[in-house]
């Protein structure tokens, strides 16, 4: 029955609107951006040459990679701790853990970044409290620097890091853990030598998602970094809107896409897409 002429017509008619929409509104303009990167301000590879030689661009790339690596480490570790309870805890613990994961997940990135401003700024909750108990006399600088960016980004990414870990922990056979304990292994040892190795695919998936997301992050670093610790995404924004240099902005975008594409290809060599949700 498959593959008759009318079937192919039906499939084409149903699938065409979305494919056409994305070709016109996404693929074609992306090629336009690629064209900008080779033609603005002058035709040639000038912008890509600038990427390799410009000190500012280089330092932003290095900072982005450094922040993304730290944020990945923090988010995956924190996500691991809460996922263990979400998946293996008692029914009440599970509900509470789910609440703490899903509520932040559904709240907008702006509200969450603002929450950190309210906590960390000079007249925010933490500084006010530390000063009122006389622990410090001058407020600590907790935002408008890399510390604030790392805290805010980790907070945003922990729920995303949870899902691959949860899927790995759910598919794990509990009897192996009970067997390890029954054979006299301590809780700690069971955790490090049995539990963690068996959730390896979840850890890899979770780390990759967090790292890839961190690379293109815009809102949180822009608010919590206060223009002082600029990351790649904010640099693209500044190149396009503040010092109109569309060619360089476009070239950075192209490099970012290629880099992320390579990372994703690497990811899918180790993890099946199904294991990520």
């Amino acid at each position, binding site marked *: 029955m*498959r593959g008759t002429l009318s079937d192919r017509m*039906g499939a084409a008619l149903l699938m065409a609107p979305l494919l056409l929409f994305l070709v016109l509104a996404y693929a074609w303009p992306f090629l336009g951006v690629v064209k900008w990167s080779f033609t603005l301000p002058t035709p040639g590879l000038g912008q890509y040459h600038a990427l390799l030689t410009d000190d500012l661009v280089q330092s932003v790339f290095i900072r982005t990679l450094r922040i993304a690596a730290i944020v990945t480490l923090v988010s995956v570790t924190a996500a691991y701790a*809460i996922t263990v309870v979400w998946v293996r805890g008692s029914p009440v613990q599970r509900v509470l853990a789910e609440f703490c994961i899903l509520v932040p997940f559904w709240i907008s990135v702006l509200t*969450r970044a603002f929450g950190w*401003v309210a906590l960390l700024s000079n007249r925010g909750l933490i500084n006010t409290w530390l000063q009122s108990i006389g622990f410090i006399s001058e407020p600590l600088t907790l935002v408008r620097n890399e510390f604030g960016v790392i805290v805010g980004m980790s907070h945003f990414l922990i729920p995303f890091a949870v899902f691959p870990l949860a899927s790995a922990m759910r598919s794990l056979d509990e009897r192996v853990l009970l067997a390890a304990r029954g054979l006299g292994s301590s809780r700690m040892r069971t955790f490090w030598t049995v539990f963690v190795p068996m959730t390896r695919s979840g850890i890899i998936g979770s780390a990759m998602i967090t790292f890839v997301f961190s690379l293109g992050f815009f809102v949180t670093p822009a608010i919590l970094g206060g223009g002082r610790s600029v990351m790649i995404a904010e640099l693209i924004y500044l190149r396009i809107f503040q010092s109109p240099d569309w060619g360089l902005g476009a070239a950075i975008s192209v490099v970012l896409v290629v880099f992320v594409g390579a990372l994703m290809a690497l990811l899918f060599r180790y993890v099946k897409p199904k294991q990520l949700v």
Partner: protein
Amino acid sequence: MPTYRPGPVSLLLAVLVALFLLMPLLAVIPVSLTPSRMLTMPTGELSLRHYRSLIEDPRWLESILLSIRIGVVSSALSTVLALTFSLGVWMFQPRFTAALVGFVLLPMVVPPVVSAVTLYFLLTSISGLTSFFGYDTWLGVAMAHSVMTVPFATVLILVSLSQLDRRIDLAARGLGASVWERATRVIMPNIKFGIVTAALLSFVLSWEEIGVTLFITSVNAITLPRLMWMGLRDNIDPAIAALSVILIVITVLVLAVRSVIAREKASP
């Protein structure tokens, strides 16, 4: 059968992470009650003036209405496009399905800032042709949001189709139903829940979209997140704290209702 529960060390670490996750959400509550015009902790007296300014300042109301309009239009567009596409995939299982679905999911995978530059290019190119559809227009924003939300809608609808029993469609086909009848009277009623969820998720994603919106609006199409962004960047307006508290309360209520419904479904 015995079960393997997390020990005290695990629980302690999880509590610390939970506190970290909830802290910034709780922190906005005291700030929203400050009587000061600046972002400070209230000292002594509390005030609801920032909640009042949300109602009295026409800018907030205008941008809320604009965000709702954009959300409804872009959610309708993404849901219809995602639904027809997914029906095509499920009913006809054409060749190259994996590649086509992969293409559709691109806006979800590509770094949002790159999608933003792409949509900026698109809308500034269109702007030359018409004045009501392009850069900094509400229709342009709605279309851009559809590009960003359509992968999520497609995933949700494809997932609910994958749980559907193919035999009911084969029966309808055997009894002589046309493609249109199979789609609208057999398949769609069975994935109603998935379609509604896709529409809702598209609306929510559009409602809180900021990364792309920043690139494609300047002075006319000021959505709610765009207005919050302006208030956050220039001098921090505590009205944002009041708005944040309201949004957090709505989110918690919706999640609570959803989990109650899910529990009732699970235990009939």
